[in-house]
């Protein structure tokens, strides 16, 4: 599996967020994307997933050399793209179990039936691995979950769905040290030649547990520098000013934008 992002320009509400971004993620590789706030890291993950609020102005996203920019969100998911969201959405009334079961069933062939016993065992194992506690199956999706539980629940879904390309968008935010270690270990366990990982993070601490093969620095909507471990350490110690200085990048002013409002209150 190969994800290829070619000279991608993406806007929202007239603001250009991604400005000529290029990236290739192969199966088996782990890429870390770091960068200052508002530089387009989450936009990259959301546009690959197909978030309807963003607009591709030019460029392409290819999965195994097939363009996916005309594909719907669900089609992309079934093709193997997964996004562990920064702010997982609460869905009252829908149990975690029903949600994950429905998601797994979308990946089955028409004449295939879910083997429920096997599914339950796998769900319980994933739940235990992530220390989600008893009763997770019957809790409503993300409702009343702590910040850490929401993030661990995203990884649980990833374990159940076996994606080919997974974006983990600030999966470390809201996690305490123990939970971070747990998530790191679980994600590392999932590493395989069939999985390309893209970690979006601000901090070195996540990368202590999930070792990246490539580290990219994103500023002003594009990747401006790529390296390895040494970049992480330098960013952790010195921030991003040295990158801007070295490459002669000036800060840009980005107008505030909205990802839409929630039409119904719960």
């Amino acid at each position: 599996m190969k994800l290829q992002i070619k000279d991608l320009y993406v806007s929202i509400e007239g603001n250009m967020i991604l400005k000529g971004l290029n990236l290739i993620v192969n199966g088996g590789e782990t890429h870390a994307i770091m960068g200052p706030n508002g530089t387009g890291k989450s936009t990259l993950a959301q546009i690959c997933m197909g978030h309807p609020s963003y607009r591709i102005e030019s460029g392409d996203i290819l999965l195994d050399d097939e363009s996916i920019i005309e594909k719907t969100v669900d089609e992309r998911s079934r093709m193997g793209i997964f996004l562990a969201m920064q702010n997982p959405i609460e869905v009252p009334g829908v149990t975690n179990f029903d949600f994950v079961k429905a998601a797994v069933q979308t990946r089955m062939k028409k004449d295939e039936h879910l083997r429920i016993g096997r599914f339950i065992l796998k769900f319980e194992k994933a739940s235990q691995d992530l220390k989600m506690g008893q009763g997770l199956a019957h809790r409503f999706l993300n409702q009343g979950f702590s910040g850490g539980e929401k993030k661990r629940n995203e990884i649980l879904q990833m374990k159940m769905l076996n994606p080919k390309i997974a974006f983990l968008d600030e999966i470390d935010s809201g996690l305490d040290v123990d939970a971070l270690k747990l998530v790191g270990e679980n994600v590392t366990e999932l590493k395989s030649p069939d999985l390309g990982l893209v970690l979006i993070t601000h901090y070195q601490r996540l990368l202590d547990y999930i070792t990246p093969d490539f580290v990219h620095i994103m500023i002003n909507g594009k990747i401006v520098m790529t390296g390895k471990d040494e970049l992480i350490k330098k960013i952790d110690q010195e921030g991003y000013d040295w990158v801007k200085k070295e490459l002669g990048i000036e800060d840009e002013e980005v107008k505030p934008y909205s990802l839409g409002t929630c039409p119904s209150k719960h």
Partner: protein
Amino acid sequence: MDILKHLKDESNLIIFTDDFISNNTEIKIKNNHLLFDKGNEFFVFLDNYTQKDDFIFEIKNKVKIYLLTSQSKRADYSIRFDLKEASELTLFTDFHAKTKTSSKHRLIINLAKKAKLDIMNALVFNGKIDFDLEVNLLEEKAEVSIEQLNVGADGVQHMVNQRVNHLAKSTTSKINNWLISQENAKLNYHVTGFIAKGQELSKCHQNNKGIMLSDNSEISVEPKLLIDEYDVEASHGAAIGQMDELQLYYLKSRGMTESEAKSLIINGYTLPFISLINNEKIEKILKRQVSRVIRRNS
């Protein structure tokens, strides 16, 4: 759906048809007057019944009644429930039409001292219906809880009037409406809580929630509180909107199609109502009715 097929094995079943009345319970029936003087669970099924006399259900004990209809022609029902002192009624109603039809149903429920009513109305009616529910809290410490799930699609018109009259001190009412409208359906609600002068320490609350699943569907709710006494507690509200786009996106990002995602969210929306029913057969009947309407129109 043949509801009778699901109910036929029930031991406490009463069926009204134009040709016969079947009653395998100990309930006495005379001119549509039913006396529930023993505590138990009962199923009452009105099968295209042309009502001559108003129904009167007299409740003298702790009783649970499942009142179901499945119409294929016009049949109007007027039913009065009289809850005697300290009696308790848990009432589930499902006014359902198999084919498009037009009907007018009216429930009047009178509660005596310390009587308690929990009512769950399911309205998945195919066609045009005028549905009136009037609850009179006649004596002290009577209390009522009303939960209503209304699902409309395919051009149906549901006109609903709900009114709770607090006519005694220390009476309590609570109304929760769950409304779903799709494909040219119009759900029109007038929800009124009235506390008469002198009926202090009464509590009157109502909450209305609605989801419109298509641009051409309509939900209108007029929540009203008519309060003629100072020392009371009352609240009302209505929140109506379209399905949350972020929830849809989240579900789709896990592989579900638009219609699968909507269906799951709707199931979640109706779950709090359905879980109140506490009877597997009836829950199954209602789930099928709802999913049939939603699936047909998605």
